[in-house]
């Protein structure tokens, strides 16, 4: 059950639609500071159901919508779609590919879709139940997280184990 594709539009600095296709193996993202590499990580966390704006480096969830530059106006919604290869059948959907989409409008309205059909956040969570996918803190290591784990006191470190357990 590996990642096939990530599509993002209106999410943070992705004012123009961006598509990444993934192979098995190691994919490296490179580029200058501030260009959007960590925003890709945020997009994956977000589409999988991240509820904490702070963990996406924002103050409120609307901060993930492209808020304009000196040359471009802000956009009105953010949308990310993550597509998985399901040849192994691990995801309980009987489809060879499974895509999850999340949309957030500036009005605050929010939508989730599985294979383009509207659903609830809870359905996304149940879909990935027991697969090791989710906003699980041990398989997504954000920039600065290693330092944070080192400085965490011994009680905070438990979270890493609790998520894995």
């Amino acid at each position, binding site marked *: 059950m590996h990642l096939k594709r990530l599509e993002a539009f209106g999410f943070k600095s992705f004012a123009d639609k961006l598509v990444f296709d993934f192979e098995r193996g190691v994919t490296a993202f490179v580029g200058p500071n501030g260009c959007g590499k960590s925003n890709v990580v945020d997009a994956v966390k977000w589409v999988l159901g991240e509820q904490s704006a702070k963990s996406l480096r924002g103050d409120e969830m609307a901060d993930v919508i492209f808020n304009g530059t000196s040359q471009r106006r802000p956009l009105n919604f953010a949308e990310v779609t993550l597509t998985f290869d399901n040849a192994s059948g691990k995801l309980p959907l009987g489809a060879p590919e499974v895509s999850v989409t999340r949309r957030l409008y500036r009005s605050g309205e929010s939508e989730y879709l599985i294979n383009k059909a509207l659903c609830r956040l809870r359905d996304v969570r149940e879909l990935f139940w027991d697969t090791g996918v989710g906003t699980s803190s*041990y398989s997504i290591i954000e920039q600065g997280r290693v330092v944070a784990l080192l400085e965490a*006191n011994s009680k905070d470190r438990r979270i890493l184990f609790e998520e894995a357990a």
Partner: protein
Amino acid sequence: CRSLFQETFEAVKLHFNETFRKLFGGGKADLLLEEGEDVLEAGIEIIARPPGKEPRSVSLLSGGEKTMTMIALLFAVFRSRPAPFCILDEVDAPLDESNVDRFNLMVRDFLDQSQFLVITHNKSTMSYADVLYGITMPEPGVSKRIAIRFEDVEKHLPMDEIARA
């Protein structure tokens, strides 16, 4: 719940010494649950001894040694609870050349069970990747994806020159 945590903890403990020894080329590492507390509350203490050294506490280790220790712990958790994919954002930043190699060799060890997305500024890490995506911002504030070949990176072409290629 208590036994599930205990089980996970014991598994991670076992793998931690292995991943640590592999990343450090020797030495030993251990995990301890704080004494006198309920298993569901106790903090987790890390013991790490790089080869030939006798550090009295993890705090005295160097920045790079602490990072390698935490990477070993994360891979140990990953070994006990595999996930389909793992995202690592700039974990190699504080590492010297030979530690970057050992980190990347460990990533390759895990490829049979997981797909990896890594974000890096490090040329050696880029050379280990199967696919390289460049993310740049020819227009300020708007991310753009570009194809990158490792040869362009090696020649030290600045990202905006690669973008025009």
